[in-house]
């Protein structure tokens, strides 16, 4: 027993693992209920009870061992970062493997490190695909071919601005404002010179690639789940980004107002 006390105890090791696990999942845009279920499930697999409290920027986690009566409580802050489905999906699968295959904690740590190092889509390809997506979106709102082309170019510019500003670590609200402004300014060429029959649609759709759809959907689901606090937090965070988009768009409108917007 004496030697065991020298190294971190099991409770502490499980707690440290779960802290990282939960924090990455929450920041990656997982539903609050899913994070809680995963944490409890993993705790049970190691014979421990887990209680979890989640706030806007921190989580609080208590792991307790029923047999020895030892408990460990920790507070961890959430890292910044947007939704990352690949991570959440991989961590969710890892949680199940830990339960079903009784994975040793060291192996699970290695898996987590591997998941954190998974590459995302290359920036240039992502930019092109998002531009195509937004152009297709414009068509869904009855935009003509000219409007689709305008939206394509506007999204290319807006999304590059977003990527560039995010890379240097700018505040997300300012990033969204600038990206919305650049995208809508590009699309407003159509309104100024009356290109095609639906330039207004192009202007409206040009900023829609920025709308934080997944956080909004998560917010409603959290509220319906009973995690009202987290739901409101997510709704307010998404709402602030939407306000930034609206501000960027209205800046453009002010600039081109004389041209019949």
């Amino acid at each position, binding site marked *: 027993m004496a030697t065991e006390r020298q190294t971190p105890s099991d409770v502490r090791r499980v707690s440290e693992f779960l802290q990282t696990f939960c924090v990455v999942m929450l920041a990656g845009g997982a539903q609050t209920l899913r994070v809680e279920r995963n944490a409890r499930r993993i705790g049970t697999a190691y014979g421990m009870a887990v209680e979890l409290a989640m706030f806007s920027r921190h989580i609080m986690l208590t792991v307790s061992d029923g047999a020895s009566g030892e408990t460990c409580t920790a507070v961890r802050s959430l890292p910044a970062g947007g939704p990352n489905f690949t991570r959440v999906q991989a961590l969710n699968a890892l949680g199940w493997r830990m339960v079903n295959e009784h994975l040793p904690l060291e192996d699970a740590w290695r898996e987590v490190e591997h998941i954190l190092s998974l590459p995302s889509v290359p920036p240039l390809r992502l930019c092109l695909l998002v531009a195509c997506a*937004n152009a297709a979106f414009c068509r869904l709102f009855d935009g003509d071919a000219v409007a689709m082309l305008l939206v394509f170019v506007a999204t290319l510019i807006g999304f590059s601005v977003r990527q560039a500003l995010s890379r240097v670590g700018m505040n997300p609200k300012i990033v969204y404002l600038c990206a919305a402004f650049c995208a809508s300014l590009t699309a407003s060429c159509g309104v100024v010179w009356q290109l095609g029959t639906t330039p207004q649609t192009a202007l*409206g759709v040009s900023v829609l690639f920025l709308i934080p759809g997944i956080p909004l959907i998560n917010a409603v689901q959290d509220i319906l789940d009973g995690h009202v606090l987290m739901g409101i937090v997510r709704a307010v965070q998404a709402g602030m980004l939407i306000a930034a988009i609206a501000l960027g768009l209205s800046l453009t409108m002010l600039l081109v107002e004389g041209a019949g917007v």
Partner: protein
Amino acid sequence: MSDFLLLAGKVAADGLFAVVACIGFALISNASRPVCLMAGLLAGLGHATRYVLLHLGMGITSASLCAATLVSFCSMFCARRWHTPAEFYAFPALLPMIPGMYAYRTILATMHFLSAAEPSAREALLVEIAYNALTTCCVMGALVIGAIVPLFALHEESPLARWRHHRTAGPEGGDAEHGGGARQD
């Protein structure tokens, strides 16, 4: 007959553009490739369904609710097939149905309202703001509720699913006994 073909073509085009839009938007959230493709197909199905319903004269809120419910049911089959939670397919598939144009018109009308001088013009703009803002909120709510309620109702641990499972598999044939691998929800 040719009218029908024309409509079918329009519906197919609508679905196709929704597929492209969904895949691009899902990639912003860094969804994995299989999830992207399946979510794209679901989005195409959902958006085409909504198009048909709108064509039949249904309101946009109820049409969105029906389309989201359909997407949600289909996502459960994907979840069972590929052992990934259903939300991963259903939520990105809703993205092309988000009522962006109504939100845009709300902002546009608000800007005009703030700079309008005549009371009669302001009144008209106020109605437009209220109509567009309410439509945006209602469609958004309809989409999420349509997608979530089936997931809640048929979740493995819900009474409805247990009852269904009880009837099909008999009292002792639980999924848990077959190794939890089948249940990655």
